[in-house]
């Protein structure tokens, strides 16, 4: 296209200035066209690669969904994954939950105090924790811990031919490795978020007692007194999507890792990056939908 336009320009220039030397211009046009076509080719290949990756990811999701509803569900492995994802994340989520509540209270208190609205602190902290802070921060932590773990574990299984060995021994690796992990993440992350919310409010109570004095029962009744059904339900629903996305991305990156040991690191790293990004995007979509409701 570019070369056609340039040729047209040369033709017009030749009519205006008959003595003009065309050969150097043509050489320039050729070189320019080759450079342009190489760049276009590079970009096209990049776009093709990206589209192929997206298509592969959706195929992977459809395959996982199909295998989820097939016979011979690997229940024992599912329970093991629930234990790995849920129980083993409790210490990290506990510490993070308490600190989020504590920090939120310490930073909000002076502003509320200046308006004489300290009594609204428990409700404000509870709503912000339940609607946004709890789900997003817990999901981001899980994307780091669980997503990278899945990426690295499945990636190393791929490199050491363990997935091939599973397939050869007549076991469907998607059913055994992927479905169990994705379902466990989808189920466990909402539970971890609720747990983080409760501990966040507990941390907030500790924060409120640093500068003031409020009983545990009063703080909790004030906190949950402000929370409505509409604050709670969308936040819980979106955490299921967070869980599914973390599980799917972690498994996809690990399962499609290359053959070298370097690819294990790449799989773990890209699982964290992509899962975190998708958590933020889902949160944005959820916020828009909740706003419309």
């Amino acid at each position, binding site marked *: 296209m570019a070369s056609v336009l340039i040729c047209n320009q040369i033709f017009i220039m030749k009519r205006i200035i008959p003595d003009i030397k065309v050969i150097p211009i043509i050489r320039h046009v050729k070189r320019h066209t080759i450079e342009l076509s190489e760049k276009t080719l590079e970009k096209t290949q990049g776009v093709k690669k990206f589209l192929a990756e997206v298509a592969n990811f959706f195929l992977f999701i459809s395959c996982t969904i199909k295998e989820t509803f097939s016979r011979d569900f690997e229940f024992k492995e599912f329970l093991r994954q629930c234990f790995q994802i849920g129980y083993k994340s409790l210490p990290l989520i506990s510490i993070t939950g308490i600190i989020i509540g504590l920090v939120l209270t310490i930073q909000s208190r002076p502003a509320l105090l200046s308006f004489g609205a300290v009594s609204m602190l428990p409700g404000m902290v509870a709503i912000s924790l339940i609607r946004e802070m709890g789900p997003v921060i817990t999901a981001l932590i899980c994307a780091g811990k669980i997503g990278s773990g899945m990426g690295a574990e499945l990636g190393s299984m791929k490199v050491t031919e363990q997935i091939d*060995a599973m*397939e050869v021994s007549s076991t469907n690796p998607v059913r055994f490795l992927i479905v169990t992990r994705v379902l466990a993440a989808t189920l466990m992350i909402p539970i971890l978020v609720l747990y983080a919310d409760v501990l966040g409010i507990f941390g907030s109570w500790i924060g409120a007692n640093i500068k003031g004095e409020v009983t545990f029962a009063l703080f909790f009744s004030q906190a949950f007194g402000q929370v409505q059904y509409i604050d709670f339900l969308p936040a819980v629903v979106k955490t299921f999507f967070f869980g599914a996305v973390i599980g799917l991305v972690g498994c996809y990156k690990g399962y499609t890792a290359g053959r070298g040991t370097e690819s294990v690191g790449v799989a773990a790293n890209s699982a964290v990056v992509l899962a975190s990004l998708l958590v933020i995007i889902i949160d944005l979509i959820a916020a828009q939908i909740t706003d419309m409701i």
Partner: protein
Amino acid sequence: MKTIPILEINNLSKGFDELEVLKNVSLQLFNGENLVVLGKSGSGKSVLIKCIVGLLIPDGGTINVLGEDVGSLKSDALGELRKKIGFLFQSGALYDSMTVKQNLEFPLRRIKKNLTQKEIDKKIEEVLEHVGLSDVLNKIPSQLSGGMRKRISLARTIVVDPQIMLYDEPTTGLDPVTSDEISLLINNVQKKYKTSSLIITHDIECARATANRVIMLHDGGVYMEGNIEEFEKSTDVLIKSFFK
């Protein structure tokens, strides 16, 4: 005697992007024999063996295993066929997160679904004894040496009583003594479990110890076929470079 081919490959071709790894490879594995496929690294031996079990899809040709055309099988039927094939991976491919016992239980529970726990335990004990490692039941793969891992991997493969055994470089990375032990085990498996085996290797000592028949792959095709004595006596430069 061994006239029934239980594995037949005709004009098999497989390439990756521009690189053509296998070009019209044809071979037959007869009932009860040990067929060794020799070749340099990169000659397409592992690609060949992975095509047989459907881990790689060939570009052309046919693979017939136990009377079934692998290329035309759907996933369920391929799964059923794989139950009759044992595959020993080059790396052993033991499941890192499981103990030795769980590694052996894994295929057994899925392939022999009717077995009771008592029967499973007995079977595991029997194969571990066969590979000479009865005392590592509760160890995890990272606690085992390279030779032990290979033996456990072999035990995991034979525990389901396969009809065909495929060995992918069974002695690679092992010291000469352990390599000899693995070669001996391959022969014992053939005798005890009446299996037919395809052994992919570049280890001449392993080939000498196990082969009933040898095929040499070179440049993606079959270069020579015969028994080990014919290979030893060959005046061909390439063959001589292997057997010197």
